[in-house]
């Protein structure tokens, strides 16, 4: 390992599985995926750790497997955060440009950003992300207002916050492996970055990541994340519905879901039946195919409806020109894009990972892990690059109150 090579672990502790990808970051600028580990998750319900020992064992097993496949030791971890406890709010601030010639300075930008982020949270809540929306200078949208001339500078932040205990539990699971958590990244942001292009995000796109226990969504507008959210409902609820509706065990229901589940009802014949196992052995039973599809489609439909309701007026067809992208493990359900198109009344597709990703990892279930590595590369690249503007230098602090 050279001095400028670091090994990053991208960890997603999901409800059904723990995924770890190992990336080799060279000089903070290029990243290669060199290892991979996966383990069935235990002790995690709806994205939150409920059994520390079981969750630790599963996560550490995946980390160890990834380290062995890469042949290196992970230096730091980028951890995906999800769970029903995560919430978000929008807060904006505005300042008058301080210079006499109305040219926006770095200090104006820092002030307006700090103002927009300074909102107290209830006891026991912590900030996970402060996602900045574009600046507005005298009402016009500008990506970087420095040195532009104007009188009033506005900026807004979408702040994602969660329960301190649940976030700490996730971090402590990783720390139990004696690896530091360098970044905590919202799962929807990680997967959204991977399955959409910069052009999609500029035009407006909604990304829905349906995992086993949770559904994460992020709405992009003007090139940045506009709104995020998490629903404590996922693919495992489909399994549960099938299990209750058809009186099956969870394993049998999971098998039926994978074999015959659909997000839209395609079977017209009510009498068409399918076998549970297909081996005609004792215990093998028949089920109406249409009933399986109906149960699955109703739940998927409901998930999309809830997402739409949560988005509220933020989601309008004219502001989301790139449509809806569905990803995550449940996105493999046939007809899911069709269902999303009907609910949101917009063009929909199942998220595809970029072509440069290895074929073995080009599955919607790995979008979050790959997105974490992408964030890792970007954050390290920012660190490696020379600082463009130093905020709060000695002289600016000295004359700040003058």
């Amino acid at each position, binding site marked *: 390992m050279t001095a400028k090579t670091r090994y990053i672990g991208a960890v997603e502790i999901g409800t059904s599985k723990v995924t770890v990808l190992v990336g080799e970051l060279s000089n903070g600028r290029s990243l290669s995926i060199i290892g991979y580990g996966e383990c069935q998750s235990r002790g995690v319900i709806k994205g939150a750790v409920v059994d520390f020992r079981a969750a630790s064992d599963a996560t*550490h097993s995946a980390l160890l497997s990834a380290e062995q496949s890469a042949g290196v030791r992970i230096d730091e971890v980028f951890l995906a955060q999800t769970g029903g406890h995560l919430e978000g709010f929008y807060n904006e601030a505005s300042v008058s440009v301080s210079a006499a010639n109305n040219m926006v300075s770095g200090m104006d930008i820092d002030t307006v950003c700090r103002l927009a982020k300074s909102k107290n949270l209830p006891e026991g809540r912590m900030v996970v992300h402060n996602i900045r929306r574009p600046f507005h200078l005298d009402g016009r949208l500008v990506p970087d207002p420095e040195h532009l001339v104007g009188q009033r500078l506005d900026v807004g932040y979408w702040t994602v916050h969660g329960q301190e205990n649940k976030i700490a539990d996730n971090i402590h699971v990783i720390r*139990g492996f004696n690896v530091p958590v360098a970044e905590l990244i919202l799962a929807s942001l990680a997967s959204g970055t991977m399955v959409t292009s910069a052009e999609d995000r500029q035009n407006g796109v909604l990304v829905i990541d349906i995992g086993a226990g949770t559904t994460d969504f992020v709405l992009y507008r003007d090139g940045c994340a506009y709104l995020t959210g998490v629903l404590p409902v996922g693919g495992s609820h489909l399994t549960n519905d099938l299990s209750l509706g058809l009186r099956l065990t969870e394993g049998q229901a999971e098998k039926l879901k994978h074999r015959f589940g659909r997000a839209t009802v395609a079977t017209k014949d009510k009498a068409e039946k399918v076998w549970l196992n297909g081996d005609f052995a004792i215990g093998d039973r028949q089920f109406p195919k249409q009933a399986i599809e109906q149960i699955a489609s109703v739940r998927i439909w409901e998930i999309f409806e809830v997402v739409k309701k949560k988005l509220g007026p933020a989601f309008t067809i004219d502001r989301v020109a790139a449509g809806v992208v569905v990803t995550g493990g449940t996105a493999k359900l046939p007809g899911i894009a069709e269902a999303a198109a009907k609910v949101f009344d917009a063009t929909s597709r199942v998220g595809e990972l970029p072509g440069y990703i290895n074929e073995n990892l080009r599955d919607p279930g790995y979008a979050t892990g790959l997105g974490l590595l992408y964030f890792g590369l970007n954050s390290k690249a920012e660190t490696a690059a020379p600082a463009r503007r130093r905020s709060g230098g000695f002289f600016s602090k000295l004359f700040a109150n003058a």
Partner: protein
Amino acid sequence: MNPSAHISPPARSWRDIHQDIAPRAMSGEGRKRLAFATLKTIGIIAIACTSLWGGYELFRLWKSDPVSIKAPVKNSPVREIVLQSDGPLDHTWVVQTLALPRGVDLMELDLYALRERLLATPQVRTAVLARKFPDKLAVTLEERMPVARVRATERDGQLRDYLVARDGFVFPGINFPADRIETLPYLDGITLKRAGSGFAPIAGMETVSDLLGTARANTADIYARWRSVSLERLSADGVLLVRAADIPEITFGTRDDFLKQLAQLDLIIDRTRLHADGRTLASVDLSVGLSANGVLVPVVYAQPEIAADQPAASASPARRNARPGFAPVFQPARSQPTRPSGQRPSAFFHLADSSPL
């Protein structure tokens, strides 16, 4: 009024979470990593402390008695060269080659230049020079050992024998005993290329060395009769041609085990001696002959010497009189009991033509 004066402190972020965790809450692997990291830290601290302490001691010594530090460095002429070598190069040769000025100081020696001086002799493979305070220069040599000889024409037209090492280096050979050199076979079928004052290394010598080494170690009597080894067909056909005192041409294949081929040769020579009625082997090709029921080795027998008083059938060379045949050499497990001498081994020899054998 500056608005920043009224900005409330930022809300608590996930970065404020204390990441330290009690070792009890860690998994076994986590504890192992923690122990490794702790040991690493302790090691680094120990090395840093030792370096600091060493530096301080040196500084203290330098302040109190600077002469004691400088003494071994200055005024210590080389009194002895200690040689350690795995070959015949001796102390006299080393002294002559290094040619150190009389009374030269040990610290003034340019060890790199001296090493280059030793390595200029191709017989020296590696040379390590070290100062041994107060007055010795230690020279450790690793020499090239010859596996064959090659005869080259010098610029003045004189023929001269050179030695060839396993790595293909050609060198004159210093201090090697003559009886050892005389047992080495000559190389044939090569083109020597001059490089600087010597010759360029010969390609394929590792294979030749393997063959000669195996023969010397396992069939010393056969090896002793070998006169030359030809590399002419090595790159094209993958075979080595050996000319022996009693067999003009023995072909060895490089794709098969040399020991096995030598065992076959030994058997063929023994059988020929017993059953060939005075005929001698003209050539043996050990590079081919694997078949379902054993190994068929093509051999060519030379006709017995024609008596001087008998008219020669033709003036063709001996090779024309040679006849090809196939001598099967069976696997050791299938070998047949030795027949009494004088009995024809027709069960063992399948001939391609109507040979009396």
